[in-house]
């Protein structure tokens, strides 16, 4: 308001020509206010020069600075107004309103600028040259250089000479004139091995095994996979929910968690593991787990979906998909490359050889596929059942055809109509007024003609004669694959004594055989479909419905669930693409294949808040697809009545009606239905005019029972949010100038970081995965080997596992890292072989004794002169409490168990689970971004939104409060005490010994035995309460909470 007042002043005060304004006001202002940073004399920041007309015409990185005549559309004005945080000019202080008004007025008048270019071409190029020079300089960095081929150093020390790893470590210690610590005591080592490899305390049964055998036993234990999966879950920011405002369930996240557990237990090569997570949906030969009938590879890309996701769409609130993509780039580049690519969202990286262009090229790769749900059941899992159902349906149909043999007679119909007035609607309407058939026929012809004319504007995209989708449309799931039926196909009733539930129109019906079968239809981006609108003839129920998706914002709330049995047309108009949104598309899906099901509470009417959407019947019908330029939907051409009104003109109305019905039924019986028959047949069926009862003992009853039994044998589909890149064109992604989503620059094509892909061979996720798995890749193996080292030793050879760049820490043993990485590849990317080698090394077996010299010279133990004292991870504390108390439920896998909560919030689905989580290991607790398990948070469960290669280990009083007073800890103590007292033959000392053995994996010494039995006495003597207190005290010893 102030601004317009000033402009008004300016105009009335002096009437100047536009050129005059430029010379007298604009040019001086430019010189005074802008030239310091935007002129060839000084600097050309952001590539923008304002010392010539061509300078602002061409503009800088963000494009033209001025659009003559349009101040409101000119970037210059936007910058001057300080409206956007990231493009404020001048950056420090906004110009006075009067000066801004001068610019606005000059631009409004057409921005005449008589100055000619002073730029020399070489200077123009200077800006881009700078990055190239800088880029090449930055390539000179250890982690970008090839892995060296090194021989392990030779040593005099025999014990340390067997394992090459030890030779590197020992040599480095010697160089620093330090000695390794003596080996750890056997009990201490066993406890360490057990926690490091399985996250659980050791069981006493293994005492007689050699170290090698013990390690092999642990590696073969299924607990190993659970423990290592949890490590990887930190790296990929695992979460069961999407957080933000509503904490919606992340569909199938737990399937990904179970996939990780299986992958670690089965020692799937890291190469395969990486390939699946990056491009599992694109593998020509997916890995099928025959035992569980699972397509493992397709689960991998759930990796992308983890982390926080906002609901809504960037078309409504700009920034939603961009933030999501940023989280993916961050997770991908940290997890696999230990490189901070996300820093280049707003500008070329300040320290690394990563350009802003690189960031957006990666964004283009990641936004090419549809981000949606996939069926992870093995592809042919249901084939036998489906074949059986089809066969039974045909047999039932044949039986019914016999039952429907008897034609309708005029007299019967007349009499029936008199007693069934309520049914005489729709197809039945002519029966209400048989004397008006001639008049109705004329009306019908007129209406039919009008509908046919109106329908001329609609171009049918799906050929009604063939079960074929238009180009670019893809389907998913057996429900769609086996769902196409001819007009009038019976839907077999799944309960009651009816045979047929209804008769289906021609089209796809996901429930045609079973409403447990999943189905989805995915359209190409709207703007690629001919015509301004696309319409579909749709029906659905039980949370089958549609989701409009703007640029991968799959938690878009333009979601609808259908409740119509009779298909109805729905139109989708091309949305205006803005805010950097490259495409809008729609998906039609049963609930299991809807990536936003269940949506936030309240959006799916009839769905209870505590219903997480598992195991639901759901269905969807697609009976037509048409494109058109004018709004509207195709009209019903009323084919159903053709057989009545177009038929030979019999004087007897009831005769005509009977003939109409009989011919439709006859065609059906002969398998020759034609368009328009289904409504007639379905009306006859639903009005009870066609026999539909399976008489007990009849052949048809047997067939129906068989059908129902076969249908009952089909399992609910397993689906996860993954990727679907079928029939999608490579995306290009708009660069956001200074990271500002409101200022879009050029469209960037798919590609990878130039520093790792100088020949630009990467064009999609599959080639991306391939490039990472090049045995000479400088980062992939190094980064993973370093993670494994850290999981075993507490600190990696590179102490910053997610950052091998300039902000990270330099490797403590660079040659060892390279040797290990090469060896890891040579041994087939096997995690277990790597782990086995490391834990059996002398380096790992050292005790925690620290020599004074070592403490002095290497206080951080970077040279590995002892094994550090480590606090149990959050999960290990909770799992140990369960294991020691005898409460641990060894069950693997499955849906997340709700954590115990003292307060619930139904709207966000934050319900409480049992205090002890049913005794399940912590990995199975629901990881809700909004409210993660409190007990684990107390012991540094990382923020679930972000990759966390290394956890914090804090040491705070609230942890003492948890161990002292948390009801779970006390419950476990009680449980343990009750178990101990079951054995009546033990005396106090024996029990204390057993407790030490279980909790600390060692015998108590004599003093301890006295101390703990004395405490027992003070706690109340040999009573259950006293034993509970003693058990609780043992849980609170630091020796229990730490291992060494």
């Amino acid at each position, binding site marked *: 308001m102030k601004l317009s007042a000033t402009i008004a002043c300016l105009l009335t005060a002096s009437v100047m020509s536009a050129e005059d304004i430029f010379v007298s006001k604009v040019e001086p202002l430019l010189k005074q206010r802008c030239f310091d940073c935007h002129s060839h004399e000084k600097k050309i920041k952001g590539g923008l020069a304002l010392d010539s007309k061509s300078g602002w015409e061409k503009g800088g990185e963000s494009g033209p600075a001025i659009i003559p005549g349009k101040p409101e559309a000119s970037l210059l004005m936007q910058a001057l107004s300080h409206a956007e945080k990231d493009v404020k000019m001048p950056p420090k202080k906004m110009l006075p309103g009067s000066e801004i008004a001068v610019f606005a007025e000059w631009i409004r008048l057409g921005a005449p600028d008589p100055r000619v270019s002073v730029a020399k071409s070489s200077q123009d190029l200077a800006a881009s040259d700078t990055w190239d020079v800088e880029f090449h300089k930055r390539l000179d960095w250890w982690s970008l250089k090839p892995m060296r081929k090194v021989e392990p150093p030779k040593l005099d020390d025999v014990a340390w000479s067997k394992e090459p790893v030890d030779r590197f470590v020992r040599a480095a210690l010697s160089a620093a004139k330090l000695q390794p610590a003596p080996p750890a005591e056997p009990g201490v080592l066993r406890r360490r091995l057990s926690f490091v490899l399985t996250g659980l305390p050791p069981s006493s049964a293994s005492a007689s095994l050699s170290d090698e055998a013990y390690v092999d036993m642990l590696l073969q234990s299924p607990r190993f996979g659970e423990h290592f999966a949890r490590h990887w879950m930190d790296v990929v920011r695992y979460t069961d929910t999407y957080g*933000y405002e509503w904490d919606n369930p992340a569909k199938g996240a737990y399937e990904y968690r179970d996939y990780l557990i299986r992958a670690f237990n089965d020692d799937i090569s890291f190469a395969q593991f990486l390939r699946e997570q990056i491009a599992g949906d694109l593998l020509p030969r997916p890995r099928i787990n025959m035992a569980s009938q699972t397509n493992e590879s397709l689960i991998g890309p759930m990796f992308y979906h983890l982390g926080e996701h906002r609901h809504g769409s960037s078309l409504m609130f700009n920034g939603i998909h961009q933030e999501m993509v940023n989280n993916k780039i961050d997770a991908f580049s940290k997890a696999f490359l230990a490189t901070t690519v996300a820093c280049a969202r707003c500008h070329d990286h300040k320290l690394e050889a990563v350009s802003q262009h690189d960031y957006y090229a990666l964004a283009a790769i990641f936004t090419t596929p549809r981000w949606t749900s996939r069926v992870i059941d093995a592809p042919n899992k249901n084939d036998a059942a489906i074949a059986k159902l089809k066969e039974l349906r045909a047999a039932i149909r044949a039986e019914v055809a016999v039952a429907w043999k008897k034609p309708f007679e005029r007299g019967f119909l007349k009499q029936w109509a008199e007693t069934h007035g309520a049914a005489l609607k729709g197809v039945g309407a002519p029966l209400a007024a048989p004397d008006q058939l001639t008049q109705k026929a004329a009306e019908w012809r007129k209406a039919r003609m009008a509908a046919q004319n109106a329908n001329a504007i609609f171009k049918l995209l799906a050929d009604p004669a063939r079960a074929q989708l238009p180009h670019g449309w893809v389907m998913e799931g057996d429900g769609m694959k086996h769902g196409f039926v001819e007009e009038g196909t019976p839907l077999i009733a799944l309960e009651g004594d009816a045979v047929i539930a209804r008769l289906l129109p021609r089209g796809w019906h996901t429930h045609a055989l079973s409403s447990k079968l999943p189905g989805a239809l995915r359209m190409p981006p709207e703007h690629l479909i001919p015509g301004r609108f696309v319409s579909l003839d749709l029906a659905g129920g039980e949370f089958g419905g549609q989701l409009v998706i703007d640029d991968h914002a799959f938690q878009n709330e333009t979601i609808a669930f259908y409740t119509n049995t009779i298909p109805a047309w729905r139109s989708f108009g091309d949305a205006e693409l803005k805010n950097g949104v490259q495409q809008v598309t729609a998906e039609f899906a049963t609930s299991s294949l809807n990536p936003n099901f269940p949506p936030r509470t309240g959006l799916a009417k009839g769905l209870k808040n505590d219903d997480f959407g598992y195991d639901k019947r759901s269905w969807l019908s697609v009976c037509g697809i048409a494109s058109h330029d004018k709004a509207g939907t195709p009209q019903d051409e009323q084919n159903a009545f053709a057989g009545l009104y177009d038929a030979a003109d019999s004087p007897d109305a009831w005769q005509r009606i009977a003939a109409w019905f009989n011919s439709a039924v006859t065609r059906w019986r002969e398998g020759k239905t034609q368009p328009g028959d289904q409504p007639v047949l379905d009306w006859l069926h639903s009005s009870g005019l066609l026999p539909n009862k399976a008489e007990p003992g009849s052949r048809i009853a047997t067939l129906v029972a068989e059908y129902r039994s076969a249908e009952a044998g089909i399992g609910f589909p397993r689906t996860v949010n993954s990727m679907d890149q079928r029939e999608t064109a490579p995306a290009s992604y708009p660069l956001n100038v200074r990271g500002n989503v*409101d200022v879009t620059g050029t469209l960037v094509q798919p590609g990878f970081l130039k520093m790792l892909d100088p020949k630009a061979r990467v064009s999609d996720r599959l080639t991306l995965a391939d490039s990472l798995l090049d045995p000479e890749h400088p980062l992939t193996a190094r980064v993973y080997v370093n993670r494994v080292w850290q999981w075993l030793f507490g600190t990696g050879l590179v102490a910053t596992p997610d950052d091998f760049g300039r902000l990270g820490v330099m490797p403590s043993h660079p040659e060892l890292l390279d040797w290990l990485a090469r060896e890891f590849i040579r041994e087939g990317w096997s995690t277990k072989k790597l782990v086995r080698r490391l834990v059996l090394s002398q380096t790992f077996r050292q005790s925690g004794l620290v020599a004074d010299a070592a403490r002095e010279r290497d206080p951080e133990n970077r040279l590995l002169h002892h094994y550090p004292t480590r606090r149990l991870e959050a999960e290990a504390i909770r799992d140990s409490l369960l294991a020691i108390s005898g409460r641990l439920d060894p069950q693997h896998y499955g849906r997340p168990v709700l954590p115990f909560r003292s307060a619930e919030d139904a*709207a966000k689905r934050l319900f409480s689970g049992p205090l002890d989580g049913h005794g399940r290991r912590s990995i199975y607790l629901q990881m809700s971004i909004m409210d993660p398990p409190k007990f684990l948070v107390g012991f*540094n469960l990382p923020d679930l939104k972000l990759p966390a290669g290394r956890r914090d280990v804090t*040491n705070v009083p609230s942890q003492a409060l948890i161990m002292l007073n948390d009801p779970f800890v006390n419950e476990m103590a009680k449980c343990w005490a009750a178990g101990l007292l079951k054995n009546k033959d033990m005396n106090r000392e024996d029990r204390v010994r057993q407790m030490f053995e279980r909790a600390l994996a060692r015998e108590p010494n004599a003093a301890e035995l006295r101390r*703990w039995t004395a405490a027992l006495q003070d706690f109340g003597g040999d009573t259950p309460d006293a034993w509970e207190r003693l058990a609780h005290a043992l849980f609170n010893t630091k020796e229990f909470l730490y291992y060494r």
Partner: protein
Amino acid sequence: MQPHDHCLCSRRQILAGAATGFGMLALRAMAGVPLHCRARAKNIIFCFMDGGPSHVDTFDLKPMLKKFEGKAIGSGAVSKRSQSNAGRVWFGSPWEFKQRGQSGLWVSELFPHIAQVADKLCVVRSMVGELPLHGQQNLLLHTGRILGQAPSIGSWVSYGLGTENRNLPGYVVLNNDWVPNGGLENFGSSFLPASHQATMVRAKGVPVDNIAPHDEAVIQRRKLALLAQQDAEFAARTSDAPIIEGAIANYETAFRMQSAVPGIADIAGEPEYIRRLYGVDSTDEHQRFYATQALRARRLVEAGVRFVEITCPSFDGNNSPWDQHGQIRQNHAKNARITDQSVAALISDLDQRGLLDETIVLWAGEMGRTPHTPKISETCGRDHHVNGYSIFMAGGGFKGGMAFGETDEFGNSVASDPVDIHDIHATLLHQMGVDHEKLIFRHGGRDQRLTDVHGRVMRELTA
């Protein structure tokens, strides 16, 4: 800065402190060493009005809205900092405004009690946010970044100044069983040591998780004695004794917290007139919760807690308490009833005790509400708006009875003196004796600040 009587730290405490992450500044504060600048205040109480109270119905009088009520706002009034489109209509405030106190500050009848302390309020009416979305604005308000992933202001204050009471945490959130949009991250310590994350004190039931001893005192002491012997031996056997010693020390602190925290949370001993002043006697459950928490807030700052935050109770299933997209007449009134009396009581009670000078009361939501609505009706509401909204500070050296900044005549955008949350953060820290550019923590390769690379100390607001 007044010298504190408890500042004599033993070397052991300092070491233990270092293990639990005290900043150097905190040690200086505890030792009575001057901070970055003269500290006017020692504590902050943040009344977080979650959901976004309407500025044009509280502190920002706009008669034009009544005059043009029902008229389309037009494309010129559309902003992406507002849920807006040209077809929406202006919506006059259902509440009357009056000038209050000696200062004549405008406060609407929505807040009859706060109106009575108008002369203590320093209202900023020109707040500008970044996005009209709860999650982002909440995180911006708390952490200075719309994406969060940074410490909450309470954690920064705790980190920077430490606690004055070693039995109590430095940052306490008096919660009403409510997780605001943006999640618990709003109260998190992020990359600062975990000891600076908020300790949650509940309105209903047990105030703090695990604070009530499981065992009777004699048993617990016996357990701790047993542990002391056992752990000392273990510490001697390990390579990293200081870690174990730190853990042992934590048990000592935890033991003391068990009695200190409930003692402060227990308001039963407060005189009846004080309890009434806050509204603890209210028949409305939610008002009772809020009043209890406000009274606890005073007791906590008296006991030396640096930063106390009070969240709003949610009385329905709404996304956040003040988020009235519809039913603003009914539900803004209800939110006001729940909070107004207690906030006013807190200010006047602190004042009477002479504590208001050293305590800042900050009253702020994460956004304001649109001065327009899709359609005028009895049940209409206001939507998200960050293009000029109101917050206030009281005490701690802020000027009273003043309003700073202006929105345009419709309350739809800032007309003069825009203020962002970084400016408020910088000013709050300044009043606490901390230079926001110097309170830093090295993380991710750079020196991180609450105010990131922004923020201006607003001397216009302080006496």
